[in-house]
């Protein structure tokens, strides 16, 4: 169960599978298509969406036209930005704390099999707790008027992929490297610093990348189930339920933007770190 999260996106050690996997006749695609293709697909999505909502008019009312959303987003930017700050902060705190905890526990698990064995079912369980269930519990334990519950939910969400990946990364040191350090009479700490840590780094960053958008989603969804009446999630719920679909979706857009920023930043870090990972 625990290794599943890593499947979400390519692990660090694998070189891009594409160049080798390309089917015949697919090799010669010009590079600019890499950028143009997603833009075209995005445009198609928007046009279909717009056509469905504004032209056919058969879309459900809670799905407004993309242009209405955009207009609302621009118009209400000041309050959206305010709520984005709150949710983004919660997600960031969750991401940082969750990752630190995950690194700590993964370190312990890597150091001692028994700890690994003891943590395995707990991590597996943590990975399948619905936010609906955990948020009220955390709010009661830590106070419903602080952002703590949301931050804790984001922490849990971020913890899982980072833990799984770091634990895996800590186990990836290659025998030849371990022998090398031992032959150089390196101390335990030196081995950790010179070998174990750098080996695990790309895995950590893969975990971070997966964790980043999960933390945002978790922080946002947690707002649905209690806590201070602020943030993206609260606003989405409030306005979706009062018939202001466009405003609600403008907030959704805000949430997507936070998630994208988190994802892109961590992807960039990951790319930097995987450049020199062991082949």
């Amino acid at each position, binding site marked *: *169960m625990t*290794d*599943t*999260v*890593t*499947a979400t996106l*390519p692990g660090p050690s694998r070189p891009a*599978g*594409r160049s*080798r*996997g390309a*089917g015949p006749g*697919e090799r010669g*695609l010009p590079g600019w*298509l*890499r950028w143009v293709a*997603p833009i075209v697909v995005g445009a198609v*999505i928007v046009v279909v969406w717009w056509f469905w909502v504004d032209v056919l008019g058969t879309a*459900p009312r*809670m*799905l407004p036209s993309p242009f209405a959303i955009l207009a609302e987003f621009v118009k209400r930017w000041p309050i959206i930005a305010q709520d984005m700050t709150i949710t983004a902060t919660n997600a960031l705190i969750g991401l940082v704390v969750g990752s630190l905890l995950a690194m700590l526990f993964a370190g312990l698990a890597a150091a001692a*099999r*028994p700890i*690994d*064995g*003891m*943590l*395995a*079912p*707990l991590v*597996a*369980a943590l*990975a*399948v*707790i*619905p*936010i*609906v*269930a*955990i948020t*009220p519990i955390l709010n*009661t*334990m830590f*106070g419903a*008027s*602080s952002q*703590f519950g949301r931050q804790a939910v984001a922490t849990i969400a971020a913890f899982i992929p980072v833990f799984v990946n770091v634990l895996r990364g800590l186990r990836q040191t290659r025998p030849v490297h371990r022998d090398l350090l031992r032959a150089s009479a390196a101390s335990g700490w030196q081995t950790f610093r010179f070998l174990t840590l750098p080996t695990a780094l790309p895995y950590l960053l893969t975990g971070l990348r997966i964790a980043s*958008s999960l933390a*945002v*989603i978790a922080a946002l*969804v947690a707002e649905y189930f209690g806590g*201070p009446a602020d943030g993206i*999630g609260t606003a*989405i719920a409030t306005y*979706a339920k009062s018939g202001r679909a466009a405003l609600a979706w403008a907030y*959704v857009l805000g*949430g*997507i933007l936070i*998630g994208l920023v988190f*994802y892109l930043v961590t992807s960039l870090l990951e790319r930097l770190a995987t450049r020199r990972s062991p082949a």
Partner: protein
Amino acid sequence: MAPRGSEVRRKRRQSELRGWIAAGWGALGVLAVLALWELYKFVGPAEGVVIGAVQGQAGSGVMILPRTHDRAMPHVWDMVARLFAPTSGGDTPPLWVSVAGAALVTLGIAAIGWLIGVIVGAALGLVMQRWQLLEWGLLPWIVVSQIVPLIAFAPVVNAIGNQIDRGGGTWPQWLSVAVIASYLAFFPVAIGMLRGLASPDRIHLDLMRSYAAGYWPTLVRLRLPAAVPHLLPALRLAAANAVLGAVVAEVSIGMRGGIGRMLIQLAGQASSDPAAPWGPTFGSIALGLIAAGSVALIGLGLANYRRGEAA
């Protein structure tokens, strides 16, 4: 060569033993958490520890240690005892029976959601691997799709379902839940399929080409088998995601009968009956573990396709 039969048997016994040891440590881990819970509940302050609180300002300060009173942290034995008390007073069935029933309902829906997710995800993975242009065009949006909060569009799916239902088609509410669950489930499958199909070594692709094997024979005999090690974890993650998605969807669109609905229903009595909400909470965790675990069983049947993994 040593007699193979005994070797195999010994190996099996060994792995069984290792399984038991792992299970033992796991049980110890769970027990440790329960013990810690009770220990902290015993020594910790009822109102928790707050730093930086401003007098007379509710909710100020940062709580660094949680509250330990019974509403925040019920005793483990109270939670267990509550499972055997009537769900809702009177002669309603014991809580655990209701939880199990609700969990089964959700499991069934999640299974359908998983299936939809697997089909859609596998299809996306296939076409993205086949045509690079599609990968470039679709993959970023597939990633973005997962950043859209489920609860934002769950009502949209529900409304579309109702539209269809009214328009003469049949669209039961659980189908909306399944579709929403599949939204979380398809993602790992699409990615796993894409990576998996692209994972064969160059040498194997060359080999198939040297046999003048076209796309389909190559797919069936090489790419799909080679994708198995990528697909299995993806399918397991998809199962866990399908359950999480189904629970949230049930809550969001107000479907009755499942564990999601039970979660919010019993959360309503968290003040006066604090042990009650833990029943469906444990139920939903068990549900996720069962879902992921049963998919892991598929892996046993495909053991031959994972021979490459060890190497």
